[in-house]
């Protein structure tokens, strides 16, 4: 069990990792990086690329023309995007010739598009759009929305329907979501927890890979720097590995706790009032579970990464050994996305109880859905058992690996190492 040698190794790892500049740097840079991604995504979504669009709107029925003119000139998004619009009244027969005539301007980009609204549109809502790039969704969606509203107005006005009824018809259905749990009263939910689940998944994914790779590098450094043998004359390889895994994992958990503290504050205090659409509903218990689960995940993956590091003595070779580990982290990460459509889908339900996958999927699932307690306990037990098996296996590979130099070993050789009495 834990002895003074393991404690010494843990202390050294903490000194090296926790009290280092790179710890400070990653602790603050990773949330910034995540924020950056969200901001960039937002900016890209904003930038629809339809600024200064030049459109000609041709209407067959004069009664519609005025409606459209008012609708377009009063629309905010059209105004923001600085559309320049010109309106024409033309019959069906003239349109074809007109398009032909404007062909040059269209292909040269002087005019971005011509919208033709025939008389028949009142009945079948079918309009035409002529452009060099007809699939410009940003343009057609704006136009079709406005045209639809105008067509509805004209259509219903002729039928003498009260404005009240008309407004009703225009309304969309508003789905309010409620989360039902066994213990708590029914609560209305916003998007907050979905965003939080996304953040959790992203944190787990990023930090498992980052901390794993870092550990692999330090193990390789110890090996190529010929430090291992001096260490092994005092410390058993199992103790060395245990100390290393513990030290790195404790550092990781502290880092995660720092990252989670703002979330805890948001969830448990009223200092920062979030709008109801994105209010967060997490208990401190869930955050604690998240940390514990993360600690076990680190023990598992850091052990695996350390074993891989001990096998190879250069970065290039190590890349070939690391991809199975990357898959073990990436596949569950992508599975978590399926939860945003339906947190209770069968793939996720099974994966939340599988070794490795469970580490990422269970906490994310608990954030967006109610999970039965027995499932949480079962997945926890499975993860602890996985740690024990991984530690045994990794220990054997590590023991042989750190003293071995020279040619890159084959996988079949590595399997043999596990059986060696080294």
């Amino acid at each position, binding site marked *: 069990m834990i002895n*003074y*040698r393991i404690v*010494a*190794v843990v*202390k*050294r790892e903490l*000194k*090296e990792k926790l009290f280092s500049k790179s710890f400070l740097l990653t602790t603050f840079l990773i949330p910034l990086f995540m924020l950056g991604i969200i901001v960039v995504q937002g900016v890209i979504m904003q930038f629809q690329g339809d600024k200064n669009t030049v459109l000609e709107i041709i209407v067959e029925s004069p009664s519609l023309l005025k409606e459209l003119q008012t609708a377009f000139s009063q629309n905010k998004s059209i105004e923001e995007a600085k559309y320049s619009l010109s309106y024409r009244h033309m019959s069906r027969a003239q349109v074809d010739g007109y398009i032909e005539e404007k062909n040059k301007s269209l292909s040269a980009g002087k005019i971005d598009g011509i919208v033709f609204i025939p008389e028949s549109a009142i009945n079948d809502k079918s309009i035409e759009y002529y452009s060099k790039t007809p699939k410009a969704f940003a343009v057609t969606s704006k136009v079709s929305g406005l045209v639809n509203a105008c067509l509805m107005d004209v259509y219903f006005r002729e039928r003498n329907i009260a404005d009240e009824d008309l407004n009703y018809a225009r309304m969309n259905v508003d789905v309010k979501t409620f989360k039902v749990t066994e213990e708590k009263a029914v609560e209305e939910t916003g998007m907050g927890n979905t965003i939080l689940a996304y953040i959790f998944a992203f944190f787990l994914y990023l930090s498992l890979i980052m901390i794993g790779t870092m550990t692999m590098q330090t193990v390789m450094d*110890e090996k190529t*720097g*010929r*430090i291992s*043998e*001096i*260490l*092994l*004359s*005092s*410390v*058993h390889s199992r103790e060395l590995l245990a100390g290393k895994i513990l030290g790195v994992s404790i550092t990781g958990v502290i880092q995660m706790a720092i990252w989670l503290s703002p979330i805890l504050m948001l969830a448990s205090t009223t200092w920062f009032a979030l709008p109801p659409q994105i209010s967060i509903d997490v208990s401190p218990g869930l955050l604690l579970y998240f940390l514990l689960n993360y600690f076990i995940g680190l023990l598992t993956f850091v052990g695996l990464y350390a074993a891989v590091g001990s096998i190879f003595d250069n970065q290039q070779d190590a890349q070939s050994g690391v991809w199975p580990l990357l898959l073990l982290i990436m596949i569950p990460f992508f599975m978590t996305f399926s939860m945003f459509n339906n947190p209770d889908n069968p793939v996720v339900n099974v994966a939340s109880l599988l070794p490795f996958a469970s580490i990422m999927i269970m906490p994310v699932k608990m954030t967006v859905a109610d999970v039965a307690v027995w499932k949480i306990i079962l997945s926890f037990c499975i993860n602890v058992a996985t740690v024990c098996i991984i530690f045994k296996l990794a220990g054997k590979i590590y023991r042989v690996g750190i*003293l071995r130099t020279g040619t890159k070993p084959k996988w079949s050789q590595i399997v043999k190492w596990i059986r060696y*009495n*080294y």
Partner: protein
Amino acid sequence: MNALEVIHLTKTFNTITAVDDASFEVPDGCIFGLIGRNGAGKTTTLRLLMNIYMPDRGEVKLRGNPIGQEFRSKSGYLPEERGLYKRMRVLDTLLYFAEIKGKTGKEIHRSAEEYLERFDLLDRKMSKLEDLSKGNQQKIQFIITVLHDPDFIILDEPFSGMDPINTNLLKEIILEMKRKGKVILFSTHLMDFAEKLCDHIAMIDHGKIILKGSLQDIKSKYSRQNISLEHTGDISFLNGHPIVEKISDFGNSKGIRVKKPEDIQTLLKLLVDHNVGVTKFNANEISLHEIFIELAGSEADTSVVDKVHHDQL
């Protein structure tokens, strides 16, 4: 009394038997040399001693009891392939390696500073290892080996890659430790060092112990039919002569082995009769190197070994 007993130690890697049924004894308070050419099984033997490898068969006993963690804590080990954490500070490194041997506290801190002072490195105690010269890094490694005041000092090819100043420094440490009654066990392929430093030796070749015992006994046993000769003039007439068993050329000197101890006088007479200028005729001297060649044969790599040790002396 024997401090360590190595009993029928065997270690196989895949198909290669690195250490093959090796048995030898290390007496208390001596400097013990494990001698053999590169790849003979020296490092594997030492790693088995340090519990870095598990033996397939056999065991090592420390004063009658099987060795374990206790022996590791009481030993200072300097491997042949030696490195340190480059970004760790000098003093932190020393204290860390003492800590994993179970030594912490003010006393070890003071002792570390004393050693640093002795090796002119006290002003570098807060430097990172990577900022030290290679020679100074080696000094730090010596300090690590002895800082926790071990009873056993185990050195694997200690003189390889060392400059003359550090070679002397290490010799000093070894002799000082001997005076303190510690057991020093080192492996080397440099026969001259072994000859100058060791009280006891074991020779290993292809994993097998081919010779062991006190250096004095071994030398007197082998020197009775051996003459170390330095001369001017031609001695080719001795080739195939009935009293001569073997002539080895060591450059400056020749090693001549006669068939019977009483042939020594005949040999001297022969040399005088043939007008050979004898500058040195030592009938009681045989070098460890000569004994080694005699027992293990002069395969290609011993000439390399020979060259290396002459370069380093």
